[in-house]
């Protein structure tokens, strides 16, 4: 037997290689260096890697523009504009998180480069998911992403909640991975392949007389994804994990996991199982209704802002699912647009939460925010704008994100679903506003001003500027998201 090495298009996997390479370089540096690797070096390595990945994305974009979408490594990896844009969003989130984490690490006296290595590796997993064209590769990406995050969640060794969250995340995540891979096995049994293009071709050219196996496999895959994006009823881990994890990690999770998981979900449901649209849509319908309504309703009763943001991100996951439910090009582009706009906002929001959390990362009750905007008008206004954007107020990108997914749903006749989701947004408005109101209330705790370190300040300002600028003028981002799905082929 002769082993055939498949041809490799290195540009296609360049971002993944860069991230893994940077992680390896840090591992080696920490092993070889005498003493500890300075924090500045670690942070700049992460930022450099992410910037290099963005540059690679630029060349990938040009390549796709010239040669069209392509697959490589035995059809397991796809290079199209969709993956390019999604990778770009991940790289951007990593840069923002690295800057926030730098100030956080100084404050918490975290030394060593483990944090950065794990963040790089986890992000590489997310990158892999955006490009995967094979259930096995999706699983690989999912595992790389998750294992990195399990450790990152436990990173705050001094806090019991951090370890508790990690254990919970690890156990439930392990189950979810097992379910996912079992689903992949069943789909393989039903269609004879784990490759998404082959599955799609098989289902397009054959009629399954007994589709039970495929349905079971697809359902299990969906459960695996639903766990990762924290869709109700698979969301139970998310509030505890969001609360327990170090706040910069929470920001990273909220952004890159969503991008990676949704990119892969779209490829599985729309590219591979697009022919089964009528079967998975009702399931997704139920999932969306539960996710949006339960997410928003449970957020209302929280007093801890990290838990509140966890439920808010559940609500957002429901909204992003709307674009998937539509199952059209418009829906795909809306989903992409949503994650593009959501990632910077959520990282910036968690950057503010990191600051207010104070030393020990423990002060996350909403009372802590009383009168923040009176003490520090700029920080308060920035948080208020970020919250309004999450709420979906016009003139912020949050509005257009919601508008895009709702439009895609109404386009295919899902008016009722869109209405339910939008009413959940009204419920969600309650807690965003309560928080915003706390910012501007008169009676605050004895005014300790929060020092805003420069890098974190830059991240927050970036998030606010992005949401306002593209909130007034969404044109470029819309075009980007739309263009990124024109070439979207399995």
């Amino acid at each position, binding site marked *: 037997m002769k082993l055939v090495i498949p041809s490799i298009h290195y540009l296609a996997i360049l971002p993944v290689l860069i991230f893994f390479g940077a992680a390896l370089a840090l591992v080696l540096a920490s092993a070889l260096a005498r003493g500890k690797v300075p924090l500045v070096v670690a942070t700049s390595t992460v930022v450099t890697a992410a910037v290099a990945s963005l540059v690679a994305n630029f060349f990938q974009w040009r390549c796709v523009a010239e040669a069209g979408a392509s697959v490589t490594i035995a059809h397991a990896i796809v290079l199209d504009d969709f993956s390019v844009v999604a990778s770009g969003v991940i790289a951007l989130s990593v840069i923002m998180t690295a800057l926030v984490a730098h100030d956080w690490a100084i404050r918490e006296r975290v030394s060593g480069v483990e944090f950065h290595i794990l963040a790089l590796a986890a992000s590489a997993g997310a990158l892999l998911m955006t490009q995967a064209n094979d259930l096995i590769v999706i699983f690989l990406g999912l595992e790389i992403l998750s294992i990195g995050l399990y450790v990152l969640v436990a990173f705050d060794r001094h806090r019991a909640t951090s370890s508790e969250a990690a254990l919970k995340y690890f156990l439930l995540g392990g189950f979810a991975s097992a379910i996912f891979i079992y689903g992949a096995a069943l789909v393989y049994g039903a269609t004879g392949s784990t490759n998404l293009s082959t599955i799609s071709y098989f289902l397009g050219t054959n009629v399954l007389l007994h589709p039970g196996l495929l349905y079971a496999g697809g359902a299990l895959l969906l459960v695996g994804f639903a766990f990762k994006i924290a869709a109700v009823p698979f969301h139970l881990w998310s509030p505890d994990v969001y609360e327990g994890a170090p706040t910069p990690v929470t920001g990273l999770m909220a952004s890159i996991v969503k991008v990676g998981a949704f990119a892969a979900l779209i490829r599985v449901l729309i590219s591979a199982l697009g022919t089964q649209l009528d079967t998975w849509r009702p399931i997704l319908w139920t999932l969306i209704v539960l996710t949006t309504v339960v997410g928003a309703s449970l957020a209302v009763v929280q007093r801890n802002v990290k838990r509140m943001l966890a439920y808010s991100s559940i609500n957002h996951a429901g909204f992003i699912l709307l674009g998937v439910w539509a199952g059209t090009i418009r829906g795909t582009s809306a989903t992409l647009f949503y994650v593009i706009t959501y990632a910077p906002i959520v990282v910036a929001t968690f950057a503010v939460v990191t600051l207010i959390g104070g030393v020990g990362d423990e002060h996350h009750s909403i009372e802590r925010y009383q009168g923040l905007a009176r003490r520090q008008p700029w920080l308060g206004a920035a948080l208020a704008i970020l919250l309004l954007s999450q709420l979906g107020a016009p003139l912020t990108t949050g509005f257009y994100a919601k*508008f895009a997914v709702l439009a895609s749903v109404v386009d295919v006749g899902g*008016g009722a679903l869109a209405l339910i989701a939008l*009413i959940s947004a009204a419920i969600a408005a309650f807690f965003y506003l309560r928080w915003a109101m706390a910012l501007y209330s008169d009676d605050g705790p004895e005014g300790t001003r929060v020092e805003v370190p420069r890098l974190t300040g830059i991240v927050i300002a970036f998030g606010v500027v992005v949401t306002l600028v593209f909130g007034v003028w969404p044109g470029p981002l819309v075009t980007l998201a739309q263009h990124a799905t024109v070439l979207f082929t399995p």
Partner: protein
Amino acid sequence: MHSSLWLTFLLVVPLAGAIGAALTRKVEGRAYVVAIAASIVELVLSLVVAFLYNDHVAQAQTFDFATRHVLATPFGLAYDVAIDGISLLMIVLTALTVLLALLGARDRRQEPAFVAWMLLLTCFTMGSFLAHDLLEFFIFFELTLIPCYFIISQWGGCERSKAALKFFIYTFTGSAFLLIGILYLGFAHQHQVPGSALNFSYGALSATAMSHGTAVWLFLAFAIAFAVKAPIWPLHTWSPITYAEAPTAGSIEMSALLAKLGTYGLLRFAVGLFPLALVTMRPVVLTLAVIGILYGSMLACTTPDLKRFVAYSSLAQMGFITLGVMSGSTIATVGAVLLMFNHGVITIGFFLIIGFIEKRRGSILIKDFSGLQGPAPIMAALFTVVMLASIGLPGLSGFVSEYLILIGTFATHSWWAVVATFGVVAAALYLLWAYQRVFHGRAVGANAEIADATTHEQWVLVPVVVLIVVLGVFPKPVLDRVTPSVQQLIHHVAPSGVNK
């Protein structure tokens, strides 16, 4: 056609004023001066637009000053402004309201954030009235919530947080229906015209063909949002607490102006876009309007505080406007549009005077007052004029509009008009009774000490009184501008709508 730059200026001036007010916050009182200057410019601009518009009524009985720029094609997002006689009147009201509200809120001149929010609110309201595109309208319509929310929650009374939240959530939920309706309509239109891009322009969408059932559903979706905003019974429950808790200038903006967004939207969009639905929905909405008139009048009799009193009397007035808007008669609709303006002016008067009294006494409870006309005769006289206009005394502005609404509605839907007429009687009852309790009798204690209206306060109220009298005697210039546009609208709606 006139240049649409005029309308763009109407949007830019308050925005620039808000930014200017925010920038000059360091110098004490400067922000207030900037804001007043901006609102005076705004009012002048709106009057210029009103006079320019006049020339064109005869030639083009349609929208003037129109322009359209597409901003993001996949979303169908466009900057599209145009006005007709109906929106013209609302624009003047918008500019007038912010000027008077700011002048009346002179004690807040040290608070730059307050005046900046007021100007932003004006910009967004102006945008809603100028918008000739449904998505654009929706965006401005939603945006008005944010300044309102901050104005109530920061400068309101003791229950301001609750009021602000209630107001926001209520309206936000209402507009959820509106957004879905707009999207549905946009896609219905896109699917009918093969190859066209998504487009929410009012002109294009009003030509969308739809079945009766679809029209009814869409009408409902639109009407719910506007009924919350107006408010129309039974979706009014946010308004009493909100009007009562908001600072005076906020109450003025909300009841005199933002409420009109509801009735304006009902007329322009719900009625204008879904004529097919009217056959079914007209009796329903008319009935709700009549219930609102009677229910509002009843509660206005019993309510203990003055701001809630105005809130309930506004509910009754909104009932009259809705009656006219839905009647399908040109006369009644003209009356309704006129009443939107007149009720705006009257409410500004009410809230200004109540604000002045509240500043002196620190209370708005009716039982705390008596005999104010002894120590404060000028204030009492001004209140009398506003009150009589609200009752609908012939010769004052309220009479003209209510009369038009009632005779118009009587021609098309007589029974509703008959019942609604009781509302006019009830208005006399609750207004006179409230006047009696507050201003008549013997003034003792703090009531006897109350100072009369200062020169500044008198001057703020002069435009209100002048408008009430002038529009009562000589409403022709306004009617000339409004009537052709209403005729156009009714003509568009009528073939499938009204039988009589």
